[in-house]
């Protein structure tokens, strides 16, 4: 069974705020749920499936209760920042199987506690005692990948910086972006090294916030006035340390990408726009290689000369400014990746960065840590008539 054409994204909503200390986590979920349902022209009583990651120990049930949902299908899959692309795929599969017709997916919350807040090393995971005692953090873990990628392929800090430059070029047109200023390669390289070769400006922002999506059956989509986006294919693949044979130069996109493309019946050449998970600049370089937009190891060359800048670049990416400049709610940027792809396919991105005649869009999410264990999910979407 394929999900191709079996489901449509009818509603998408990104919380406009980046710091939300005056709202509870559940309130943020409620605000984005209301926003996405209003976007679709649907109401809470239409929702018969609910997806969110587990933040409470009881999966989606806690928030289903808070939101007043009566659903016949729930899914609390947590694959880090890629969770929400997984949710879209699972929702489409559930719809295709006849389990539900209107799936609500929500993300909301506050960014994690500040570094240094005490946590005993490795408690609760089997791998933790062999890693956390050595001071691994999210940034230095990604830096391990960047260093090795440079060693094997000759990638440079200047090439990494180009990813941030392109994101900032897009963010200048987004009034909600946390960092709306255009930056240069020189400014990225002059920002403090956090874990070399990664600088502060190689890193995504940390924000409160959230977003929501409404995925519906073809029959429901036909009844809506709103322009919908067709779900064409999705793949998901965890990658881990593979019994001590960890290879930090590629991501799980090498597996999730081909699955999604095969299901969608398209190739990289068909992709007009791509939301690429950008926790760090190296994440983008490795992912575009792994998805096949260029040869392995040539991602650094691919991003040069405005390669990622919309609408003129080889691969217009992250036209909202991405996680590097716009928003990375609760350290889970997969939601905003899908939302911007939906905007592009509806022709509702900011005019300066809208890809003309955008027919096929890709959204890719990563989660966890690139140099140890991570989730990857690739989603291929098409215009309503695709």
């Amino acid at each position, binding site marked *: 069974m394929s999900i191709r054409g079996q489901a449509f994204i009818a509603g998408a909503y990104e919380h406009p705020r980046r710091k939300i200390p005056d709202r509870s986590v559940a309130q943020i979920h409620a605000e984005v749920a209301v926003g996405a349902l209003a976007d679709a022209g649907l109401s809470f009583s239409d929702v018969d499936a609910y997806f969110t990651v587990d933040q409470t120990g009881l999966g989606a049930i806690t928030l289903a209760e808070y939101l007043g949902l009566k659903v016949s299908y729930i899914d609390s899959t947590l694959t880090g920042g890629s969770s929400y692309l997984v949710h879209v795929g699972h929702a489409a599969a559930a719809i295709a199987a006849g389990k539900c017709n209107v799936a609500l997916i929500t993300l909301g919350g506050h960014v994690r506690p500040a570094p240094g807040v005490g946590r005993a090393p490795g408690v609760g995971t089997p791998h933790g005692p062999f890693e956390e*005692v050595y001071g691994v953090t999210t940034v230095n873990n990604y830096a391990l990948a960047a260093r090795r990628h440079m*060693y094997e392929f000759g990638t440079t800090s200047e090439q990494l910086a180009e990813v941030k430059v392109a994101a900032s070029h897009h963010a200048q047109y987004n009034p909600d972006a946390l960092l709306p200023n255009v930056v240069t390669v020189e400014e990225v390289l002059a920002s403090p090294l956090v874990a070399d070769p990664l600088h502060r400006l190689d890193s995504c922002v940390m924000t409160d916030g959230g977003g929501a999506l409404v995925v519906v059956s073809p029959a429901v989509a036909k009844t809506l006035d709103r322009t919908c986006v067709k779900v064409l294919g999705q793949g998901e693949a965890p990658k881990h340390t593979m019994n*001590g044979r960890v290879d930090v130069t590629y991501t799980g996109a090498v597996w999730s990408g081909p699955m999604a493309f095969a299901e969608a019946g398209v190739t990289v050449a068909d992709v007009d726009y791509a939301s690429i998970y950008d926790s760090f600049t190296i994440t983008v370089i490795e992912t575009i290689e792994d998805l096949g937009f260029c040869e392995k190891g040539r991602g650094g060359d691919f991003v040069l000369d405005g390669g990622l800048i919309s609408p003129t670049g080889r691969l217009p990416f992250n036209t909202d400014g991405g996680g590097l400049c716009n928003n990375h709610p609760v350290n889970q940027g997969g939601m905003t990746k899908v939302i911007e792809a939906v905007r592009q396919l509806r022709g509702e991105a900011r005019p300066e960065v809208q890809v003309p005649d955008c027919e096929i869009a890709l959204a890719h999410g990563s989660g966890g840590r690139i140099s140890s264990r991570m989730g990857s999910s690739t989603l291929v979407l098409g215009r309503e008539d695709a």
Partner: protein
Amino acid sequence: MTEGIDRQLPSPAPAVVPETEPFWAATAEGRLLLPRCAACATVIWYPKGICPECGSLDIGWVEASGEGEVYTFTVSRRGEGAYLDAGPFVLAYVELDEGPRVMTNIVGCSPESVRIGLRVRAVFDDTGQGSALVRFAPVER
């Protein structure tokens, strides 16, 4: 260029469970043990009670040479938790001569002198709680 040579990194005690107790007990004696599958002889990393190659639950231990080379590394300038005030330190994966790539720190040299491919040998930093962290220092030539 000498900064860091003699500086002691934090040595937080790992959580030890029965499954991994032999590993940590050996570290306290300055020995690096690796789990090895009794069924298919695969060397296993990280230490665990199942062979991820063949699914056997019959796991033994072998003593490692303690030598390997740097697979990748970073000079981490902003620590968290026990490393909050540690100053710059080197986080690395070292590929042991027995095969596995293990997460660790490179010590005994300036961070600026670390390179991919550098030959290193295990050193053991006592946690004070019946275990030692397995770090690596350059092999003297």
